[in-house]
């Protein structure tokens, strides 16, 4: 049932993209017409050659049919298969998103736990404020601040290791911090609630040590909402990569998507969105399954 729901979501996303791009974005030939070089006849011939003069419904059906066969078509500009164009950029985005997610999860758990465990103290309050600040700051801002702050480190002649740091660690940090804030706040909320619960007092009375109380008894029930959020954040990270990749001039799907939309390269834009929709759906289903595994109560209700 959940999978079916997921597939339906993916289909809706792909369909909206298909029509949205054609109605909203520019004519893929506009760029060339803008050069004033193509006569209307020549532009029409080009349009026909690319299959853009067929009825929209017709184009949509062949797009869906292709999608089922795993064929996303060819870029209008280069003629390269869309799967290959995406494949070339995917590893870079996957690396960024994975590292970003790791930063988000580790940072979020640390911030949230600290904020709830030391509530009211300077440490607790600082952690809570840091989480709020991290959520509020846009990636485009923190990215530029990070580049400026580390610019000496990255200047000409820097050893390759530092270049690698700039290429991955810095963008991942910037990308992860934004999500870490959100995760931290959810962990804090859940943990504060469970720390105040009677069974924690009971555990304390039984002499269970503080660390174990926190990690095993209090944190576990606080996790399901955090896990759902992490799955959501994983999907948001993918959209965050659009900005991060642009600010850091990194290759990847985000920049591919922006370029494809601006230049009206429909097949490529559709391909990236289809992939993102599938990923989004997948991470949601995964989050549901994880929550079920973590919280037995949900299993009974479900």
């Amino acid at each position, binding site marked *: 049932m959940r999978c079916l729901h997921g597939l339906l979501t993916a289909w809706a996303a792909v369909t909206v993209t298909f029509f949205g791009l054609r109605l909203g974005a520019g004519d893929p030939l506009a*760029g060339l017409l803008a050069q*004033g070089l193509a006569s209307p006849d020549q532009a029409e011939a080009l349009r026909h050659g690319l299959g853009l003069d067929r009825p929209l419904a017709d184009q949509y059906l062949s797009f869906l049919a292709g999608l089922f066969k795993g064929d996303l078509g060819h870029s209008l500009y280069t003629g390269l298969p869309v799967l290959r164009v995406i494949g070339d950029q995917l590893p870079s985005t996957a690396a960024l998103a994975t590292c970003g997610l790791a930063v988000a999860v580790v940072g979020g758990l640390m911030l949230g736990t600290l904020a709830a465990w030391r509530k009211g103290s300077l440490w607790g309050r600082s952690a809570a404020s840091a989480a709020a600040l991290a959520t509020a700051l846009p990636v485009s801002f923190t990215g530029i601040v990070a580049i400026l702050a580390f610019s000496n480190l990255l200047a000409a002649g820097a050893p390759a*290791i530092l270049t690698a740091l700039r290429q991955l660690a810095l963008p991942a940090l910037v990308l992860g911090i934004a999500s870490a804030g959100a995760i931290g706040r959810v962990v804090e909320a859940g943990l504060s609630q469970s720390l105040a619960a009677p069974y924690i007092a009971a555990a304390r009375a039984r002499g269970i040590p503080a660390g174990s109380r926190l990690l095993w008894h209090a944190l576990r029930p606080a996790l399901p909402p955090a896990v759902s959020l992490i799955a959501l954040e994983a999907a948001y990270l993918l959209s965050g990569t659009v900005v991060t990749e642009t600010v850091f001039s990194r290759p990847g799907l985000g*920049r591919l998507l922006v370029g494809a939309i601006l230049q009206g390269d429909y097949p490529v834009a559709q391909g990236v969105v289809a992939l993102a929709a599938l990923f989004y759906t997948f991470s949601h289903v995964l989050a549901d399954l994880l929550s079920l595994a973590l919280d037995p109560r949900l299993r009974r209700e479900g």
Partner: protein
Amino acid sequence: MRSDRTYHPLLLLLAALLAALAPACTGAPEEPVTLRYGLTLAPTGIDPHLNASAELGIPLSSVYDTLVFQDPQTGDFVPGLAERWTISADGLAYTFDLRRDVTFHDGTRFDAAAVRANIEYVLNPDHHSQKAAFMLGSLEAVEVLDEYTVRLVLAEPYAPLLDSLSQVYLGMASPEALETWGPTEYQFHQVGSGPYRFVEYIPNDHLTLERNPEYAWGPSIYEADQAAIERVVFTFYEDLATRAIALQSGEIDVIGEIQPRDAERLEQSGDFVTYPVRIPGQPSQFLFNTLQAPTDDLRVRQALTRAVDRAAIVETVFGIFSPVAEGPLSAVTIGFDPGSPYPAMDLQEAAALLTAAGWIDGDGDGVREREGQPFSLHIVAPNWGSNPEVAQLLQAAWEEVGASVTVEVAAGFGALKELQAAGEYNLIGVNFFGADPDLLRTTLSSDGLYSWSGYRDAHLDETLLEASRASLDPDRRVALYAEAARITRDRALLLPIRDYVNLVVASSRLQGLRFSTQGWFPQLIDLRLAP
């Protein structure tokens, strides 16, 4: 001397770790002299024969040689791969005698058959060429007369042909490489005969060129015989905000399309030099719609022209680097006529013209009326090139003389075309770049693709068509374009704003930076990088 700074132990650990790892990661003991060049967009498709982006020409103009080159100083065409050429009296046949000493980067020889193979590759309808195929006029045949003589035959005279043949889009590639890789893969394996060879292109990441040590057939416009910089690495910076930062952090040595404010700031630091490169073609401009009231009245168009201080607008929006435009062509374009400048601001004259046209503010509300209709104007501005900011200043200026003005911003070229098709505009912003003034036909001829002023004038059409065909008489062309500029000004068909300037900022270590006639493409061979 002892430093009094203290280091956090963690930082020291990190430094030790980095120091340990660094030698393992840096490969070659001696790095070749490398220039890092920032590009402002990551083009989709970089085969110049098939793709249209101007950005691709920045690296690739140095990978390819062209049959002829255009001297950026004089505008004259000089020999390139063609040692000499003749144009038949009817302007229909161009015969080129080719150099015999040219080899492509893959070792194959350049000859007349290669010219034919290149043009056939560009014109192959299955290849969907977006630009090069449209630069050849009415080309009918490419005849190989002997091993080193080739003739291009046209159906109609086409004066811009040499200009086309001097551009990277019609650069000569190794026919063997074109054949081997085909239209989709060739862009990753480009083979020309220029001063730099193509090493690799990773989309959205980088493009690398390396010096061609065999190069010995450069045109006279190249000062150096051989490139001094061994390697050039191009990276992409679409985001305006990141360009100045990339320069400052030392990530790149040079980049174009910098914001005027950033350019001023960088130049003041002393580490950077600004090169305002003027781009030939049309200035940023707004076309008057001559079919829509009230701009269907010549007196209104003249009054609106008189009511704005264009110099002040240019300085406000574009800073100190942009020249004010004085006609339908920018001042660096062939055919620009310094003899017909636009009238200066004169508010009294503007008011008098409007009153003469029947627009009078009868009820004293600040807006003129005629026959109960308010004097309202609608401006459509594309969302690039600071057009919206210019439109706002025009709005303010025209409200001063009693107009009620609305501004609509078009997000992208598709949206602009839709708003144009709706026809509800009095002014619309549109302009095109190119070194040959024939591009005026697209906006000013009544059958032009973008004749958005709606103005029909057989004399103007005839003038522009004749100029397009006057292949053998450059002076006559210049005179014809001066005539077209005069008609444009007298009929107030458009409001020119500023000549487009590509603000290139480079490290002060970089010497010898010069650009092609088109304005976008650097001559990489002449660059030197001081230590």
